[in-house]
């Protein structure tokens, strides 16, 4: 039996009804958005279900969308089914003022450092994480550098007169 994206979607809708939104398929991968309160339930369902069996957390990261009011931060999960070789992506949107998301470390050990990385760069607060502290940046850092409010210098700017390092 091959697991199609339509079937996965149908199973998810049966289970969670209207809670899951924004179903779409891009480059052959099904993706959707889940409410922050449901992220663990969705993952547990995908993990436990006999047919779905998404038991490998390929990747976990975050994205900052400053223009989406009250949903500025997205935590992105990539799950994988080894048997059927199917990938799936879902996002959890949280406001930047209250970026609380439940940790996936109870389900996947691999989530530990990936969540620490997302905390380090985006400030996502993973509730229940065993060791939520900075991982790649220095501990003394007081901001979250991958957020869009810290732009890198525009390479095409011309107002800067710098004889030594001018461009």
């Amino acid at each position, binding site marked *: 039996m091959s697991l199609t994206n339509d079937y996965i979607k149908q199973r998810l809708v049966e289970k969670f009804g209207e809670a899951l939104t924004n179903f779409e398929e*891009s480059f052959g991968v099904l993706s959707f958005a889940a409410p922050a309160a449901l992220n663990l339930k969705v993952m547990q369902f995908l993990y436990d279900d006999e047919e779905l069996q998404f038991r*490998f957390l*390929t*990747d976990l990261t975050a994205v900052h969308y400053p223009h989406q009011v009250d949903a500025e931060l997205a935590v992105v999960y990539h799950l994988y089914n080894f048997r059927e070789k199917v990938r799936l992506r879902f996002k959890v949107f949280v406001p930047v003022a209250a970026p609380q998301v439940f940790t996936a470390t109870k389900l996947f050990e*691999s989530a530990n*450092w990936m969540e620490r990385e997302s905390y380090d760069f985006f400030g996502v607060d993973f509730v229940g994480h065993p060791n939520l502290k900075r991982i*790649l940046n220095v501990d003394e850092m007081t901001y979250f550098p*991958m957020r869009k409010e810290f732009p890198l210098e525009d*390479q095409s700017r011309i107002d800067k007169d710098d004889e030594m390092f001018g461009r």
Partner: protein
Amino acid sequence: MSEQQHIHLPQGSVEKQTTTLNLGPTHPATHGVFQNILEIDGERVMSAESTVGYIHRAFEKIAERRPYYQITPLTDRLNYCSSPINNMGWHLTVEKLLGIQTPKRVDYLRVIIMELARITDHLICNGVVGVDTGAFTGFLYLMQFRELAYEIYEEVCGSRLTTNIGRIGGFERNFTPVAFQKIEKFLAEYPKALKEFETLMTRNRIFVDRTTGVGAISAERAMNYGFTGPNLRAAGVDYDVRVAHPYSSYEDFDFTIPVGSTGDCYDRYLVRNAEMWQSLSIIRQAMDKLKGLPEDVYHADVPAYYLPEKQDVYNKMEALIYHFKIIMGESDILPGELYNAVEGANGELGFYLISDGGRSPYRLHFRRPCFIYYQAYPELVKGAMLSDAIICLSSLNLIAGELDA
């Protein structure tokens, strides 16, 4: 037997029964800049705490300001033992986003370079496992051939370690006859050295005793910890991106995925060795397949993304326009969101790319395999001897550049 002697120490003189040992950040046995704070009881490791991030260079942030073709040099510096795979993984990701179809010859040339890179990565790792167990000779046998592989890269792209090889759409120039001669030379001579290396190591009593059962992990735990690549396969899971989601025409090749069973250092060593033989066979097949294809094709016909010949830039209006647009990063990029993975030398190297149609990615995330599986290190070495912890570290094939991004 006399009765056991009890030594009565003054109250409070022994505060702690264990010793704290800083393994790294600049210890020669760590083969990279990362620190492990080991709590040891005698010579037995009670717990380990890893600190990473010493060479963090914020590539994901930098990538948000760079046009797509300028991100390739950033990927070089992830896993610098096999940078061509990273480069090509990035090209393949962008090509997937833009819907570029590369000709078969480009695919096969890429396969040759990627498999060479896999061999160079594995030979370093296995050589270093040998060095850490006290056998320096094998490392040197293999190292000569890394030099030859680097000469091949040099012939193709001009540089050796951080290669920046290829472009979006193909290669920057065609392979020279010398490059093919060197690949043939590699194919002819490397098997002898690898055979010699295997004769030296594989059934060597000391090596087997030092590595068997060290740093073992079950398939279930390995999957839970997000292991990929040879480390996962050594635990017995036959997951390989080249087979599961073929890219760059890997489906045309006939090869097997070596798997281990116990997931210990010895199995990891065996899997890497077996993979080198498979890679050699893939390169051989690719060389044979190339014979039937037109020899002057080395890039896809996508003038909007692939730099034109320099001669044409001076003489043709269109070529000049495209050249300008590409160099200034003004090529049209489609909006989209995708995750694309290639089988890196130490695991699944993924690129999660969000494009909003601008000149640079909106967000680019590298799924760096060793960052994810290194978390398992404390579990792997718990209760092991200190010297075993060192072998375990080198047999995981950690590359500091990739770990810290």
